[in-house]
């Protein structure tokens, strides 16, 4: 093995360990921005309060400015009229950012198929985790948060350049 290969290997080792470390830190410090529009809100309140307590997952402290948040929780039906606002909120969030579609309305429009309802927020912004249910049970939401945490832990986290 020549020395450049060795360097490359060492670099990759370092990158991986750095990603693990940053991922571990990031997955437990999610700051959600609740974009709450409809009945799913009730379940959102339930899952964030003491009974289910998303604080145990480091994902409870809501930020009501998109600039301070890194998890956009879209909770409820999004109409075509609201879509530009949602898109704007998403664009105002800093990287890294993740999006959760909370409930079937946000996921796919749910049972609304008409002039008003957007057929899933992924038509206008990328989504990381979908939570089915109308509304989803708190357990499903927690499952969704854990899946998102796994995803964060397993992704790369460039902090200095594209490569590192």
């Amino acid at each position, binding site marked *: 093995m020549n020395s450049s290969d060795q360097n490359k290997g060492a670099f990759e080792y370092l990158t991986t360990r750095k990603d693990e470390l940053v991922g571990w830190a990031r997955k437990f410090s999610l700051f959600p921005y609740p974009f709450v529009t409809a009945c799913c809100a009730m379940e959102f309140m339930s899952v964030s309060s003491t009974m289910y307590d998303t604080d145990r997952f480091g994902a409870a402290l809501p930020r009501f400015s998109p600039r301070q948040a890194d998890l956009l929780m879209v909770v409820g039906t999004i109409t075509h*009229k609201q879509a*530009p606002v949602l898109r704007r909120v998403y664009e105002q969030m800093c990287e890294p950012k993740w999006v959760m579609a909370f409930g079937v309305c946000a996921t796919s429009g749910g049972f609304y198929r008409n002039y008003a309802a957007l057929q899933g927020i992924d038509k206008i912004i990328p989504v990381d985790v979908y939570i089915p249910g109308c509304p989803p049970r708190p357990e499903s939401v927690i499952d969704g948060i854990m899946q998102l945490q796994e995803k964060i832990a397993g992704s790369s986290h460039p902090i200095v350049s594209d490569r590192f």
Partner: protein
Amino acid sequence: MPGDLLERLRARLADEGREAVFAHGLLAVQIPREALLDTANLLKEGFGFDLFLDVTAVDWPDRDPRFDVVYHLYSTRDHVRVRLKTTVPGTDPVVDTLVPLFGAAAYMERECHDMLGIRFRGNEDLRPILLYEGFEGHPLRKDYPKEREQPLVRYRE
């Protein structure tokens, strides 16, 4: 007594050749559209129906005239409601506005205009209230395609 009041109202309307019947526990009055303003005025000034609850319309695509325009008024003194109904043809869906009598009518007429395309003569502000600028058509009309979408944000690929 509400029963009394409604009986008096019915007699009074019968004088003017308007038919009023009890339907679903409400006094329902059918009037031609020309008589709308006068009748609403009579109900408000003469019988104390001082609260404008709602205006909406019903689309009967195969009927002529095509639309029913339906008003609900409430008396805060006697706690009774009354329903006013008139018809307008699909080619000329216009009725007089009730804004001079009830300020609250302004918003509800806007909604009715949004959803069913009924125009209210004299209401100067029929901008979209629930829909958005640029929306074409009237979604609660029966001939609006159920699945037609008019998105404001371009979809991702």
